[in-house]
């Protein structure tokens, strides 16, 4: 175990019980994610991607196995500890943005920054996601791509250790998607944040340092990508 590792998963399983039937969403997942890495988790629908991400992000707990975050076992955390963990270490980005419809772009970001003691500078982030002039717009006044950029700004503004993105481009068209991915890469490279992106879209994996392929709740393959592509070079 090195200091480099942000996540260390050991034999993580997740079962959902629904009456008589039980769904095994994850089966003995073991893998590491290193500090500053850009990781893409790739897999078909229902393969357990979201489940895995949620467990890493402290939104859910594994049925079996251990999850270490910076060498601390978070799988034994209480709900309260998980809340603090999410607050301080994790930034989430969702497929459908999940912005508060009642709050403007700026306020949506403030909703996150109010939680932590050392947030990033709001204006800098707004500039970073290129939404300075949209700061006072409500989500319903923005396009999907713009909304997703606000969501990314909201996730990063807390200055978390990791950014966990569940299908961040799933609801976007090609060129808007590329823009969002470029932004994520910049966050990874310039701000030195570990970024985990979930997708079922194969080409996106080319921008990753490492690709974890999932299938039916198991790791099918882990690929090291020596030459990650710039998102602008990706085509789908």
């Amino acid at each position: 175990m090195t200091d480099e590792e942000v996540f260390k998963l050991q034999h993580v399983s997740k079962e959902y019980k629904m009456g008589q039937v039980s769904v095994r969403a994850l089966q003995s997942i073991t893998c590491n994610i290193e500090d500053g890495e850009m990781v893409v988790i790739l897999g078909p629908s229902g393969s357990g991607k979201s489940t895995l991400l949620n467990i890493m992000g402290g939104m859910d707990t594994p049925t079996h196995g251990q999850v270490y975050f910076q060498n601390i076992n978070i799988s034994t955390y209480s709900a309260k500890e998980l809340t603090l963990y999410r607050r301080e270490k994790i930034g989430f980005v969702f497929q459908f943005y999940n912005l508060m419809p009642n709050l403007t772009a700026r306020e949506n970001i403030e909703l996150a920054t109010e939680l932590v003691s050392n947030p990033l500078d709001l204006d800098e982030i707004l500039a970073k996601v290129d939404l300075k002039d949209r700061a006072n717009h409500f989500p319903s006044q923005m396009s999907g791509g713009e909304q997703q950029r606000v969501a990314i700004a909201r996730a990063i503004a807390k200055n978390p250790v990791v950014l966990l993105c569940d299908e961040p481009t799933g609801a976007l068209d090609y060129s808007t998607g590329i823009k969002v991915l470029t932004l994520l890469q910049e966050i990874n490279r310039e701000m030195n944040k570990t970024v985990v992106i979930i997708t079922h879209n194969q080409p996106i994996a080319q921008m990753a340092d490492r690709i974890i392929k999932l299938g039916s709740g198991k790791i099918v393959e882990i690929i090291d990508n020596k030459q990650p592509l710039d998102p602008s070079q990706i085509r789908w």
Partner: protein
Amino acid sequence: MNKLNKMLWRDIRKSWGQFVAAAVVVFVGITIFAAIYSSYLNLKNSLEYYYREYNFLDYYAEARNITPEAIKKIKALEGVKEAIGRISIDVGADMGAEKKAVVRLISLPADTHPSVNDVYLLSGDYFSSTGKKKCLVTQKFAEYYNIKKGDKLKLIINNNLNEFEIQGLVASPEYIYAIRSGISAFPSPGDFGIVYIKDEAFQTLLGYRNIFNEIHVVLEEVDKPQHIFNKIEDILKPYGFIKGIERKDQLSNYTVAEEIKQLESFAFMFPALFLFVATMMIYIIQKRLINYQRTLIGTIKALGYSNKSIFWHYIKYSVLVTLAGSLPGVIAGIYLSKGITMEYNKIFSIPLLYHRIYGEVFFVGILFSMVFCVMAGIQATRGILSIQPAQAMRPEIPKVGKKIALEHIKPLWARLSFGWKVSIRNVFRNRQRALLTFLGTVLTIMFLLVSMFFMDCVDYIFKFHFFEFQKQDYKVVFNRPVAYEDVVELQRIKGIKEVEPILEVPVEMKNGWHKKETVLVGITEENSLYRLRDEELNPVQVPTKGMLVAEALAQQLSVKKGDKLTLKFFLGNIEEKEVQVAGFVKQYAGFMCYMNLKELGVLLEEGKFGTGALIKVEKGAATSVEKELYDIPGVESIESRNEAYHALQEMMAFMYIFIFLLLIFGIIMGVAIIFNTTLINIMERRRELASLRVMGYTIKEIEKTIFRENALICIIALIPGIALGKAMSHLFVKQFVNKLFALEVVIFPRTYLITLVCVLVFVFLAQWASRRNIKSLDMIEVLKNREG
């Protein structure tokens, strides 16, 4: 402002109609609460203050000849602070303008105010030792006959006419509510007045020499005064002790205390209804909001907000609704209570009645509403704690459209129009949403019924008493018993159609340890002017043997048909007698007993005689008969049934104002509930309605669907609403029944009709008010935004 608060604020603003509707219901409830509760405190505290300042009695006793020594002995008893002797007799008074009434003549010391039951001078001066033939009169009575200071009052004492000059108008803590006896049904201020004259005048008039027939006592602060009363009664035994009455049983005080007691319970009962509705509304609003914002809650949890802060964020909504309603409610209520409190002086006579602002009203009012509403909020919000953040992010499973039961009744279902089919399906598939409208309507119907039933009840009972039971135009009372034949003689007066002698005897009825004072009325067997009715309202006549007892009185004495009651007479030296209970009669106030006049004469060891007569006059002869009766010297009082009825109606104006207010509040609540449910309905279905609009439905068509749904639910709610309303009415009636009154739940058919019409009007109003929300439905925005 922190961002969660900002969200809350904007949520409220976005659906302010809902917020306002719920707050209005809280407002109305708390306004009523504060109005009644503050009036209650005003009345209670003013009364206590008045009693204290004017040394209202703790106890009084009647005895035939109380001497100054007896009073001295009683005054010397431990625990007795003050004791005074006085003379008190009821005499006839000539009120001028061809009116006669009964007044209570009470002696007062000259120069110094009495140390018990002091009088409050509203005008004029207290007695000095010099003036002769002066009197003080209670103000309510004087007002009724329009007599003033300086006027002469003619009293018939021992068959002699005596004139007294009124030197002032007064009020007394002893006669805040002036009724002659507990059996005076529905008294009016003109029936009975109090006239005070100087001690010495009394002594000479009646030939009393240092003798009193009443003693009034004020005690020191003692815990259990019963033993003092016993001692007083022992002392009075040799002086012809008749009866002793404690403050709590003193008629005026009993009546006022009952009123105060009722006020206190009403202060909570009526508002509880409103708050119950508000609770339901808040619960449903919150529950909906949370379901609706499930993903948002998940997202906030993902951001790292704790359960506690999210929980509190939602609870704040109910706290705000409650405060938005209860704060102005308390203020409005206190403001209203000033009027209500002062209105009490129309019935009562409390010169020291004051209005004050009590912190208690604020405190209790806000706590009262908080307990109800915040509980609802907590109950609705509890679910948040168990929302798994990961779970919340997944879309909820959509409900499958199952067939509803009605669809299986093919012949009926096939006949419905497409629009109705859609509406009916919507109602039955969205049970929870329908339940809200349903409950709201049930509660509205209940409330309308409860407020209107009071009117029906009072109306019915007055009509029963004045028109069903009594058929005479006048009742005359003689100043002494008169031979039967002489009473019948009245027939000779021109214009009199019928005369029926009556014999009224005050008695104490005893059954074991149960005791009640009442009047035994002797009526002739062919009597037709008192239409007695049994418990089932069938006409009955007095039997030749035994007596008929007012139903409520029988209950208080706990006697059954066939039981024997022991009768103690207050007149003469007649021994106690036993009389059998032959049956019961219906009576709502003025509980008396009835028997054959001749039999009663025998019971009293006398012949056939009467103390008064019921008189029916020819059409148009009323004024001339009244004048003739007035001129008969032996006539002590003449009661006109019509006048009594109208005087009463005037007094009841107070109650009608109260009911009117309740009704207004009920209507506000009804509109608020139905408006709110309509709004929720629209909000919840924005996507569905927007889709309909996209498909090309007109706004009118959409409105129609919603209206049909509401109307359908209202009709279903009718029966349970009425049932609940009746049940509630029974609960309220319980508050009214006491020693002097019986009430029954009476609801006229027209009341049901009015209720139905009101509810339908509310549906229309709500629909109309929510039009804007349907119109402003932005199709594109609704369909684009996942979170709505």
